[in-house]
């Protein structure tokens, strides 16, 4: 496995890596706008702009654009949330789905839409509160029981299944809950409307800005609590604020994209292979890679079994799981080699 080890030392320069990822994102966005049940040519984009009432323009405005923005926002948000959670908790096994953030957001979203069916605007807030509650719960349980990397994951598993049971209970009791459909459980961005996206986009925008502004602090925090403290960082405050940001990001993504599992766990790992662990590069890289990969996966789900569409959550799990196992094996090998 020599190639793996050298690949991690001879990386692209940060600027080159970010440029590559940015181009990848642009490509994925273009593909997402053009491909689908009705495939368009690049020239159609221009003609749609010229003639906004044409059928092509309508497909673009009401189907492709919201869907593309949704996968971009959800992917970038979950990628960033993953980096934040992993570095704040100092735990590479942590991810929004592992420590119950997605499940918490999901439960609150389903609950809110069961209790107040007309409150589309409030869903991102509900998701944020759910994500935050789940995260604080898992974090404090792990801290009480020894704060090791393993207890955090185990506490996450326990809270996850509890919250998912809660989601199932609400769906059973209120069978006609809009977002309680299986599509939400699996996760996907098909059929997302601009009205759903708008409030969530505000949270995600603020969250991404906050995360980018604090990436140096995040790096210092990742050195461990004692070192960070001795470097003058207000550790408790910063940790709480960063987790708040991660909750806003992951929660907002879940509020419209459902439980898109692996993005927040896998994307930071994949990005780290490209650019290393320096948050100042890793964070923007994870945002770009998250947006690009979720968008590409969404395009794939439209094309693979056309005319049928696979929910993107299924594809993500199918791709993400082997990748995660590969990361685990690679890690073990590196540890074994010292």
């Amino acid at each position, binding site marked *: 496995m020599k190639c793996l080890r050298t690949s991690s030392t001879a990386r692209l320069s940060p600027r080159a890596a970010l440029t590559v990822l940015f181009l990848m994102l642009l490509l994925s966005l273009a593909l997402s706008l053009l491909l689908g049940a009705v495939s368009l040519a690049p020239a159609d984009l221009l003609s749609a702009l010229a003639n906004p009432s044409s059928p092509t323009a309508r497909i673009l405005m009401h189907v492709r654009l919201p869907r593309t923005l949704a996968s971009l926002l959800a992917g970038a948000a979950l990628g960033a949330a993953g980096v934040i959670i992993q570095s704040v908790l100092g735990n590479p096994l942590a991810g929004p789905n592992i420590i119950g953030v997605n499940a918490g957001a999901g439960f609150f979203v389903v609950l809110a839409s069961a209790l107040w069916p007309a409150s589309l605007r409030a869903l991102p807030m509900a998701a944020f509160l759910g994500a935050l509650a789940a995260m604080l719960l898992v974090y404090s349980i792990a801290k009480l029981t020894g704060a090791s990397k393993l207890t955090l994951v185990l506490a996450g598993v326990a809270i996850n299944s509890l919250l998912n049971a809660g989601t199932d209970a609400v769906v059973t009791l209120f069978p006609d809950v809009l977002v309680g459909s299986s599509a939400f459980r699996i996760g996907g961005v098909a059929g997302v409307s601009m009205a759903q996206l708008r409030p969530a986009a505000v949270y995600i925008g603020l969250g991404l800005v906050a995360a980018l502004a604090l990436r140096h602090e995040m*790096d210092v925090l990742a*050195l461990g609590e*004692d070192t960070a403290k*001795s470097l*003058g960082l207000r550790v408790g405050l910063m940790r709480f604020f960063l987790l708040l940001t991660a909750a806003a990001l992951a929660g907002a993504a879940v509020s419209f994209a459902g439980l898109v599992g692996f993005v927040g766990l896998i994307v930071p790992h994949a990005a780290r292979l490209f650019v290393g662990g*320096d948050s100042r590069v890793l964070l923007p890289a994870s945002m770009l890679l998250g947006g690009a990969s979720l968008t590409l996966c969404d395009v794939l789900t439209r094309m693979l079994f056309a005319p049928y569409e696979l929910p993107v959550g299924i594809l993500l799990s199918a791709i993400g799981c082997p990748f995660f196992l590969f990361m685990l094996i690679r890690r073990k090998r590196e540890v074994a080699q010292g």
Partner: protein
Amino acid sequence: MIELQGVTVGYGREPVLRDLSLTLRRGEIAALIGPNGCGKSTLIKTAAGLLRPLSGEVLLDGKPLRAHAPLELARRIAYLPQSRQIPAITAERMVLHGRFPYLGYPRRYRAEDYEAARRALEAVGAAQLRSREMGALSGGERQKVYIAMALAQETPAVLMDEPTTYLDIGHQLEVMRLATMLRQEGKAVVLVLHDLNLAFRFAGVLHLMQRGELVFSGTPEQLSQSGALEAVFHVRAHRVELPDHSAQYVFE
């Protein structure tokens, strides 16, 4: 420059340190020694301001530690923890983190920060590791980089928790020579040491601890004659004159 006045420190109900007083001075290497679990790490963390005592006071240059802002404290006291993370960044990035207390917003490194990092890496003899990944370094090399990070903080006090543990003898002596150099620069150097040989050879003052209490403070000479070592470690120290007229101690 750091003064502990009757501090009691604990994590749960049972205090780890009880009513302990101690002064750490500039231009002096102080070694904290004692059996495992006697509270050495807790003591050094308290002196570094990482743990708040339940009672008593820690003074930095005559002013209570908690009256100093975190960043101001970080420009006065550097602390090397016993257990260290290994982030996926280069050695230089790692050392540059030592400049965090000096960065304003938006956290851009200035030429003097790069210069401080370079000097620190050179001081620990690790200039050639600059662009290597932390994960690819040996234990001893990582240790040097961590020490360089503490040096880049450019503080008048340097506190290190077991800086020599797990190092081979050559690296151990390098670390101790570095500590001597810092002492000569007039810094207060505080080390938790497991190895009595190193402690007796390089430290000016030894603080012997047992079960959360300070048993004895004094020079190696005073400690070897006090009988406190027998009481705590059940060993006796014999002074051996070296050809260069410095002294070495043998324990039996």
